[in-house]
Every structure is written in structure tokens, then in C-alpha cells.
């Protein structure tokens, strides 16, 4: 099926629900639980569509995120990510298609979904005059916890997201990154099994990002399902097991992603002797014009991992001193750019 999404209506039923796995790291893909009818956890989205009047924000989104994994949600600005997130968060009804969060339908079993769902929105709203501690304990009480349990949970979360020093300050004095951490803590208040994180890393310093990554991986290892939307693809690369690519309201098909993985992508090669490296590359049959120079490094387009391994072996064999040999862009970024450019054709 060619990847052409020119007209509505969305192709019904032709896009099967696929979990796109642009596998990034070895740690990925934990024991995938059998998706039986009995234990249908995680997120299952099938042919979901939603429009606002004339604007078709989401046309045909389908994917599965299984418990114990971190799934990235990527796509250009205005591709419908936030609308999809809002539907998953039980705030917006889909016009068509079905959603299952931890086995429940957000439209008909809203309370069941909400008790299993943590949502960290991209808008950082907080009650400005309340302290960090009160914000969390009020949120806990909104999940029907009693006052004592709520206070205990608030203390736990404050330690978890490292806001201990600011626990009794009003939230309006928090910086963006601190608010981000508060927002994450709020999403975790009721220990949900499914987490939707919308741009969780924006505004965080490198140390806090490291903490976030560790926390996200830990939550996944506890068997939770995480869907993370982010623009910082390199970062998503580090924490996600797979990704859902959304463009113009349509999730990319498995074929499109497979094709994207096979397309040529730039590799970055660094050597102390650039001249010799260039000569060796030409000798390998790469056209002089196809070799780009980026400061002291050379960039060449290679199709697939196999081609890269072969080239590296031959360069080393030819006695070239190689200090760096790596993809110039991360896997997700490559898919993102490739699919975006395919889209615009």
C-alpha cells in the first residue's frame, strides 16, 4: 500500500493496529505479555479520528502500547499529537474508532480509566497560591484518598521528583523545570498503570533529564505502560522502546517505517587524517560529491546497518585511523525526517 494520504475519508480497516518498533536499545522489548482478552492492559488505539468542525486533527490513528514498555509519540507540530493525547486522557471523545486504556473505554468507563491513568499535560498549570505539598495532597484527595494517605503520598512524591527544598513554597515561585517535575509527580499520585507524558523533558536541565530517563525506565520495568510525546528525539531515543509516528493525523504504517529504516542515512566518520579518509572513501566507490564535510568530520550516506559495518571494516582494514563512526542522526530523528519529507512530497 503506497503511503499516500491525500484525501479523506481515512482508509477504514486497511491500517491494522501496529506497534511501530524502531528498536533503539538492547534493553528494549521486555517480555511482551500475551495480549490475551483476559489481560488487555496498556493502550490500544484503533482507527481513531477526531475533527473540530472543518479541521481534521486526527484522521486515522492506530497503535498499541503494551505494559512494561515506553512508546514515543512523535510527529511534526500540528500533526494531532495533543488531540490524540487528550482523547487518551479521557478528556475528548473520539468521533470514530476505539480506545482502550488498561482495558477500559474512556468514553463509557471514564472512572475506571481515570483510576488507572496518569496524565502529564504540556500546559503547566498549577494552583499558584498552594504549596507543592498541598498541590499533591489535594490531587491525591481528588482520587478519593483520605487526608492522611494523601499527605503521605505527597511526601513520597516530593522526594521522588526531588522538590524537597521547595515542598512548602507556593507553586508560583517554581521555575519551568520545577513545575515540570511537579506535574510529573501529580500524574503519579494514584500510582497509575498507564502514563501519558506530554513533553516531559522540556525545561529540564541535564541532571533532571537524567533523572527523568531513569524514572521512566523504572516505571516501565514495574510493568506500567508509558506513552511519551516529545520533540527532543535524541532523548526519546534513549528512553523509548518503540515509537508511533503521527503525521497530519494519521499514524505511519509499518511498511512506511520499514522503508524509512532502509533508506540511506548519513553516517558521521571522524579521523585524525581527513585527507586519507576522503581518499579511502572515494576508493570504496563513494562519489567525491556525495561526501559532506562537517568541521573535522565527513558525512556519507549509507543504506542500512550492514552497509555501514562493511564500510567500517574496510576503512579499518585500509589502515585509516577512525575515532568516530556513528549515525549522524538518531533512529527516531531519521524516521521523523524521512517520513516528514515523504509526507510533503
Amino acid at each position: 500500500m503506497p503511503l499516500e494520504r491525500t484525501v479523506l475519508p481515512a482508509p477504514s480497516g486497511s491500517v491494522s493496529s501496529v506497534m511501530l518498533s524502531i528498536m533503539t536499545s538492547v534493553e528494549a522489548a521486555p517480555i511482551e505479555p500475551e495480549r490475551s482478552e483476559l489481560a488487555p492492559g496498556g493502550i490500544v488505539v484503533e482507527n481513531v479520528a477526531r475533527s473540530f468542525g472543518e479541521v481534521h486533527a486526527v484522521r486515522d490513528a492506530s497503535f498499541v502500547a503494551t505494559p512494561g514498555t515506553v512508546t514515543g509519540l512523535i510527529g511534526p507540530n500540528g500533526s494531532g499529537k495533543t488531540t490524540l493525547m487528550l482523547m487518551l486522557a479521557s478528556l475528548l471523545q473520539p468521533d470514530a474508532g476505539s480506545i482502550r486504556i488498561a482495558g477500559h473505554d474512556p468514553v463509557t468507563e471514564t472512572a475506571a480509566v481515570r483510576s488507572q491513568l496518569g496524565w502529564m499535560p504540556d500546559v503547566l498549570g498549577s494552583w499558584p497560591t498552594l504549596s507543592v505539598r498541598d498541590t499533591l495532597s489535594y490531587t491525591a484527595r481528588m482520587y478519593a484518598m483520605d487526608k492522611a494517605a494523601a499527605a503521605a503520598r505527597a511526601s513520597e512524591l516530593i522526594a521522588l521528583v526531588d522538590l524537597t527544598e521547595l515542598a512548602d513554597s507556593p507553586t508560583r515561585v517554581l521555575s519551568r523545570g520545577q513545575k515540570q517535575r511537579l506535574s510529573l509527580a501529580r500524574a503519579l499520585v494514584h500510582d497509575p498503570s498507564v502514563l501519558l507524558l506530554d513533553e516531559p523533558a522540556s525545561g529540564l536541565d541535564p541532571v533532571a533529564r537524567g533523572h527523568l530517563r531513569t524514572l521512566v525506565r523504572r516505571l516501565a520495568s514495574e510493568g506500567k505502560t508509558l506513552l511519551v510525546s516529545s520533540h527532543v528525539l535524541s532523548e526519546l531515543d534513549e528512553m523509548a522502546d518503540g515509537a508511533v509516528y503521527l503525521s497530519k493525523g494519521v499514524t505511519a504504517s509499518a511498511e512506511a517505517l520499514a522503508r524509512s529504516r532502509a533508506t540511506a542515512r548519513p553516517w558521521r566518520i571522524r579521523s585524525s587524517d581527513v585527507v586519507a579518509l576522503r581518499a579511502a572513501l572515494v576508493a570504496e566507490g563513494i562519489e567525491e560529491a556525495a561526501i559532506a564535510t562537517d568541521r573535522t568530520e565527513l558525512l556519507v550516506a549509507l543504506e542500512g546497518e550492514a552497509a555501514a559495518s562493511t564500510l567500517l571494516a574496510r576503512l579499518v582494514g585500509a589502515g585509516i585511523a577512525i575515532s568516530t563512526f556513528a549515525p549522524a542522526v538518531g533512529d527516531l530523528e531519521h524516521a521523523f525526517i524521512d517520513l516528514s519529507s515523504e509526507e510533503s512530497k
Partner: protein
Amino acid sequence: MSAFFAGVGVILSLELRQRVRTTSWYILLGVFVALILMVTVLLSFALNGFGTDDNGAAGVYSTVIYFVLLLGTLVAPALSGNAINGDRDAGTLATTQVTLITTGQLIVGKFLSAWITALAFLVAAIPFLVYAAIAGRLPASTIVVSIVVLALELGVVAAVGVGLSGLMSRPLFSIVVTYLVVAALSIGTIIAFTLGGLALQTTATQTSSYALEYDSAGAPTACSAPEEYEYQTPRFDLFWGALAANPYVILADAVPTAYDSNDQPTDLFGYFKLSTRMAQIPQDAGYSYGECVVGESEQYPDAPSARSVIESTTPSWAVGLAIHLVLAGALLAGAWARTKTPAAKLSRGSRIA
């Protein structure tokens, strides 16, 4: 049911906590108390001049109650008119809605919070009301009924504000519209009543026949041919419903009236009540005046006593209060429908998060 109110309690406590922590709210309350103090002192001096020691203070009481109603209805829209869309702007509405708090709990909690905040103004005025009530030797029924109705009216304004804040997407707009609703009820009803009554006039006919000759006893023996004279009379009786929806009228009308020996009301509320109740009585569609007809020269009917007017007419406060409660309930229900999640429809340009 108790689970529902537990959720309402969380929202209520959260809302009150946020409001009570702001200094501006205390300043507002302070200004309010200072104004009431001034009004009470000045009125006590002014009404003392009339000599009647009790009516003066009864007047003070009525005026202070009206003053609390005036200021309360001026402050309540600002306190309630951005309850829901303000949260949406601040990004705290959606994070509440993804919790187990239902839309009903959210709206009821916000309404109660706005109401309680407005009631704080009534509570702050209580010392002055107690003073005026004691000085005016008012019956307990007057005090209880007036305070209850005042509290209900503040609740209506709070509900209108919360309701509109759920129906409209921009906080500034919903606050202004809440003020317009208050203005429509307080002033608009009077304008509608007056203009409506004057515009819909009916023609009444007066037939007059004057005596031409008299006998020795001075009784008329021959009269002129009856002259017909047509004139327009306003139909205020068709529009009393408009006046009934006025919060000031509701307040005056609800208070049980005490009468003096001439069946006239003894306090200010009673006189307001009398004048609005009279509007319910249709004007005579005409009358005839014939000096030769025995007794017709005394045809002008006696003005009925205040007591009989009040007792024979519909208690309009019940009608008015019912209108207000329906309005408040409808707006809250509308806000509920508009705020409900998962949302099926979004108003143009509004963002759910």
C-alpha cells in the same frame, strides 16, 4: 451520595483555600465593612430627625440589608464569574478533570465556594444588622426572612457567575455578562416593568353626567346627557412578573409585614411590598359618574387598605425567587453540559487543556 459530597468537599476546600489566601480579598472585605459602618452611622443620624424612635432604626435595618444586597451582588460576579474558564486558562481545569472528580462535583464545589465567599460579606455586616434590628425593635421574622432571602440571592448571583464561566470560554467576557445579568435583574426589570406598562395602554371610558337643576334639598333633579370621555391607562398589571424578578422586590416582598392600627405597614420593606403588589391589580377599565344616580357621585371606590391589597395579591417573591432559582439552575446545568468530559463538542477557539 456521601462519596459525591466528599469530592465536592475537596473542591470546596481547594477553592476556599486559594481565595482566602489572597490579601486582596481581605482588603475588599475591609472596604465593605467601612462602607456599611458609614452608611449605618449616617442613616442613624439622618433618620433620628424624623422623631419616631423605632421607625428610624427600622429604616436603618432595611437600608443596611439593601446595601449588603447591593454590594454583595456587585462583588459576587467578580468572585464567581471566572470559576471555570479561569481554571481552563490557568491550565488547572483539565488536570482536575482527569482525576476521579466528576463534572458535577466540580461545578457544585465551585458554586458553593463562590456562594460561601459572597456570604462572608453578609456575615461581616451582621454586627450592623444586629444593632439596627435591636434599635428598631424588629420582629424576629423580619430578621430571619430578610437574611435568608439575602443569602439565597447571593447564591443565585454566585450560581449565575459559575454557570456563565462554564458556558463561555473567556473569563473577562463571562464576568461582564454576569454583571449584565445582575444589572438586568436589578435595573432591567424596573425598566421593563415601566416601559411595558406604559407601552401597552388600554382605553378606559369615563361617562359623566352633571346635575343641571337641584331641588330645594339640594338633590339634583335634572342632569346633562352623559358625556363619554376616553383615556389611556397603563397596564402595569400585565408586567408585574418583570418586577417580581427584581432581587430588591423579592427581598421586600418576602419579609412578613407588620401593620399598624390603620392597616398600614410599619417598615420600609412593607411600603415597597405594597407598591409592588398594587401593580398586580388591573386599573379600572372606566367608570361612570352620574350626579343624578343615587350614590354614584360617591362612585370613586375607596382605596383598599394596605393590608387588603397585600393579602389579596399573589406573593410575588415566590414567583421571583422561583424565576431566579430556575435561572441559576439552568445556567449551572448548562455549565455542566459544556464542561463534561470526555467532551463531544468544543466551542470555537476553546482549548480543553
